[in-house]
């Protein structure tokens, strides 16, 4: 019975010292983690899409005798630059997914299996002294302590990781915001340059008196594609900036909730609707 006493003492210590994340902290981490995964996946996809659009626009521009260079179809989207941005977006997404799996209850089955084995072994040793009810209570106790120990470990890991990663997440958000802003000399402004060049070149190609039907068709198609890219850059870019700004705010609130036990997670809660608006905008413009 000495072992039972020790287990009861351990359980009591854990209950009274509060060893896990509280409900608000758990909700905050889970919501932030989902948003971070969503934003990371979106950015990786959208940056690749912008690169493809740039190459496509320049290809059409060359076809209409425009000013694009055949040797520089991707312009600002050099492989090294785009790969660094996609890696950062993927790291942001992985961070969200891993953080979510850390706070979600995924170890219950393993814990039950382990406690069943423990009770079976205990039955061999003290089975003669303990009845079935007492053995069942022992199993519940072992599971409970294992669960509390897991909650303690989760809380300890989350509290350190969320605080440590805060600045780097802010940096990635700021860099992505600059890349989605048309006037920040980032990738979006690079796309803006291509859009304007194609529009001007298509307009001039169509104004030429000797232009044949086939060339006119290519020029119209080039102009239409530049116009579609312009709409996408405007709408998706705006939503992306709003969502990344919201993610940054939520990041600060998450750290305050974790570190100072702040009760409000309003910024984190609004993230879900921002992510949905972003997904809707992307879906509408992709025609899905």
């Amino acid at each position, binding site marked *: 019975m000495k072992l039972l006493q020790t287990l009861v003492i351990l359980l009591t210590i854990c209950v009274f010292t509060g060893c896990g994340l509280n409900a608000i902290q758990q909700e905050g981490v889970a919501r932030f983690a989902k948003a971070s995964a969503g934003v990371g996946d979106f950015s990786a996809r959208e940056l690749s899409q912008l690169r493809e659009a740039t190459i496509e626009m320049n290809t059409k521009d060359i076809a209409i005798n425009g*000013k694009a260079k055949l040797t520089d179809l991707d*312009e*600002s989207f*050099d492989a*090294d*630059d785009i790969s*660094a*941005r996609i*890696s*950062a977006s993927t*790291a942001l997404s992985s*961070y969200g997914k*891993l*953080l979510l799996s*850390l706070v979600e209850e995924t*170890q219950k089955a*393993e*814990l039950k299996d*382990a*406690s069943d*084995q*423990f009770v*079976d*072994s*205990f039955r*061999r*040793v003290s089975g003669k002294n303990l009845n079935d009810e007492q053995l069942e209570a022992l199993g519940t106790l072992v599971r409970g302590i*294992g669960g509390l*120990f897991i909650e303690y*470990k*989760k809380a300890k*890991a989350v509290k*350190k*990781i969320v605080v440590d*990663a805060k600045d*780097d997440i802010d*940096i*990635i958000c700021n*860099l992505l915001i*600059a*890349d989605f802003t*048309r*006037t*920040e*000399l980032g*990738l979006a*402004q*690079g796309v*803006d*340059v291509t859009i*304007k*060049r194609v*529009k*001007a*070149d298509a*307009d*001039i190609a169509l*104004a*030429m*008196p000797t232009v044949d039907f086939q060339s006119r068709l290519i020029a119209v198609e080039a102009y239409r594609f530049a116009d579609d890219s312009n709409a996408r850059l405007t709408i998706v870019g705006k939503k992306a900036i709003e969502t990344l700004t919201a993610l940054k705010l939520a990041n600060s609130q998450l750290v305050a909730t974790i570190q100072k036990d702040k009760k409000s997670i309003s910024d984190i809660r609004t993230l879900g609707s921002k992510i949905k608006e972003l997904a809707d905008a992307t879906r509408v413009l992709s025609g899905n």
Partner: protein
Amino acid sequence: MTIGEQLAKTSDSILDLILATKDIERKKELREYLTAVLALTGKLVEAKVDRDTEKYKAASKALTSANAAIKEAIDDIKNVAETIKKLAKAVDLVGKLVDSLA
């Protein structure tokens, strides 16, 4: 107004003029101005994109370390069940020892 905003505003105005004018020679003349503004914008964009690439790489590296720390924590949590299982084995062995001595 930032340099990016100024350049965007200038190129917007020139493009609007190109689209509005009917005269082909005037369009071509304006396109030369537009090409010059866009070339300058493009150069500044490429320079900033390159500088930011280094910042992305550094932040990405740090976040990858955070992800490795989360994986470690997940493995550590899995070890709780493993520890209970090991404890069960130890109790089992003690039981067998007691049986053999009885």
